[in-house]
């Protein structure tokens, strides 16, 4: 199947380490491009680099394991991703459970004011955990 692909792609798809390194670097360049665009007052250019990096990185991450004859992702990678995702959710939950009620209490006591930005963050995190609950239900029932 790789016969139809260009040589650089074949090279990347030949080894799991190279595949991961290239995909992570493409993401990193995209994200760095976004921040550079913001820092140098070129938000459009930064956004284009960011979009190019994330789309290319995501595309390669999704397509290469399917077209490569080498095993690029296996059960251990998936297990690592699951554990990392679980850890990230747990850390976020601990931070939210610790910080948000304290913010409400301090706000009620008129010691701090919850700004619009903070409300935005609280709503975003709430939406995230709502999504997580939906995913948990779906995986528990249907997968």
């Amino acid at each position: 199947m790789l016969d139809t692909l260009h040589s650089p792609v074949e090279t990347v798809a030949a080894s799991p380490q190279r595949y991961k390194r290239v995909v992570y670097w493409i993401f990193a360049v995209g994200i760095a491009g976004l921040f550079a665009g913001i820092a140098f007052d070129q938000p459009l250019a930064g956004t284009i680099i960011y979009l190019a990096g994330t789309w290319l990185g995501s595309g390669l991450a999704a397509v290469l394991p399917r077209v490569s004859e080498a095993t690029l992702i296996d059960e251990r990678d998936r297990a690592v991703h699951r554990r990392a995702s679980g850890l990230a959710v747990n850390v976020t939950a601990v931070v939210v459970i610790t910080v948000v009620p304290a913010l409400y209490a301090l706000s009620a006591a008129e010691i701090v004011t919850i700004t619009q930005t903070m409300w935005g963050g609280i709503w975003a995190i709430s939406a995230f955990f709502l999504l997580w609950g939906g995913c948990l239900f779906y995986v528990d029932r249907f997968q």
Partner: protein
Amino acid sequence: MDTNLPKRRAANDLSQEALADAVGVTRQTINAIERDRYDPSLELAFELADYFDCRIEDLFEPPVDDE
């Protein structure tokens, strides 16, 4: 989980890469199993046992419970 995978591999003159190719995982996964940093799925354990023509218990030993 203790494993004698390195000994089995050595007895068959097999590299981690070759074993990984044979059972459809990456070399890093075989390495992680051998270094007791990853417990394989039941499916992979069966694949490995099938490859070496032995039972799973011949390849892996569960951790000893002190209690």
